[in-house]
C-alpha cells in the first residue's frame, strides 16, 4: 500500500534523502522545514504517515506532537520521531509518537517502518504494530 508521507526536518539533506527513498517506493512525499510548516501542510492535506525530527527551529517535534494530539483530524496519524539523541532523552519531552528512529538511520529502516505503519490493521489504521 502506498500513501502520502510528510517529512518534517530542518536539515535539507535528511528531508531530501527520505523523500528520494520513499518516492522510489511509490509514495507521495511532502516535506516541511519546521513544525509550524508541517502542521500547516497537515491542515491542507491529511498525511498517512509523518516522519518528524525532534530538534528544529521555530517549532520542534515535541510541540508538533502535542498540537497533533489536540487536533482530531490528525491525532491518529502515525508519527515516526527522529533524533540523533537516544530515545530516553527525547521521550522526556515527547509523547504520542508511534515509533522512534535514531539518526543516523539506514534507509531500509525508513522503508520497513513505512510499510509497517501504512498497513496497520483496523478501521483507522490503529491496529497493533
Amino acid at each position, binding site marked *: 500500500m502506498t500513501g502520502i508521507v510528510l517529512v518534517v526536518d530542518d*536539515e535539507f539533506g535528511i528531508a531530501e534523502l527520505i523523500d528520494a527513498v520513499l518516492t522510489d517506493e511509490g509514495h507521495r512525499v511532502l*516535506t516541511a522545514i*519546521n513544525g509550524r510548516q508541517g502542521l500547516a501542510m497537515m491542515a491542507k492535506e491529511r498525511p498517512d504517515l509523518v516522519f518528524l*525530527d525532534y530538534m528544529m527551529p521555530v517549532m*520542534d517535534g515535541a510541540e508538533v506532537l502535542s498540537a497533533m494530539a489536540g487536533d482530531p483530524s490528525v491525532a491518529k496519524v502515525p508519527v515516526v520521531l527522529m533524533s540523533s539523541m537516544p530515545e530516553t532523552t527525547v521521550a522526556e519531552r515527547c509523547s504520542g509518537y508511534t515509533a522512534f528512529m535514531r539518526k*543516523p538511520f539506514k534507509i531500509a529502516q525508513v522503508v520497513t517502518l513505512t510499510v509497517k505503519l501504512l498497513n496497520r490493521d483496523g478501521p483507522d489504521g490503529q491496529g497493533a504494530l
Partner: protein
Amino acid sequence: MENTEAALQALRQQNAELMEAIAARDTFIAVAAHELRNPMTPIVGQIDLLLAALQAGKYSSAQVEHRVRRIRTAMDHFIKRAGTLLDVSRITSGRFQLSFTPCDLSDLVRETVETFSEPARYSGCSIAVDVPETLPGAWDRLALEQILDNLISNAIKYAPSRPVIVSAENLGSLVRLTVRDYGPGISSGDRARIFERFERAVGPKERRSGFGVGLWVVGQLVAAMEGTIVVDDAQGEGSLFTVTLPRYSDTSLA
C-alpha cells in the same frame, strides 16, 4: 574557628565550580556527538540508496551522478561541522591560531552563498548578495567561511520562505559584513546570550537544532580577528547580524 569556616566555604565554592565545569564538558560531548551524527545520516543514506538502485539496475548514469553529487555535498557539510567542533576545542584550550592569506571578500561571499542554493530552495528562501565587484584584503579564509556559513544557515532555518540578504562593504581599513533575514527576529533577552557558550545559553532540554554552538564559534572567530559582531532587530522585522573586521592589505601583513 572563623578561618575554618571560611576555608570550608571556599572549598565548597571550588567544588561547585568544578562540578559546573564537568557538567559543561559533558554537555559539550553530548552536543558534539549530536552535531556529528546528524550530518552523517545523509551520507550513509545516500550511499545505501545508490547501492540499492545500482543493484536493481534501475538508475541511469545521470541519476547516479545526481546521488554522488549529493554524497559530495553531504561530506562537505560533515567536514564543516567537524571543523567547527575542532575550533571549539582549540578556542577553549587557547590553541586557536589564525592564518591570514590574501583573498577577495566579494568572491568569498558569492561562493559561500552558492553552496546554499539547495538548502535555500528547500526552505523557500532567496538569498540576495550585495557586494562590490571586488573587495581584496587578507583574512583567515576558513574563519570567514565559517562565520558566513553559520549566519546564513541560521537565517534560512529560522526565517524560512523569506528573503535573506548578505552584504559586504569596504570601509577602507575595515570591512562590514551583514546577514539580514525577515524572520521572527531575536528577543532582546536572547540577543544578550546567543553568543555565550552554548551549554550556558540553553539548558539541555531546550536544545534546538544547532543552536548555540555555531554562534558562539562565530563570536569567538570574530574576536580572534579583532572584529566585532552585533545583532539588531532589523527595521521592520527579522534580525540583522553585522560583523566588522579589520581589512589588512596583502602588504600590511609583512
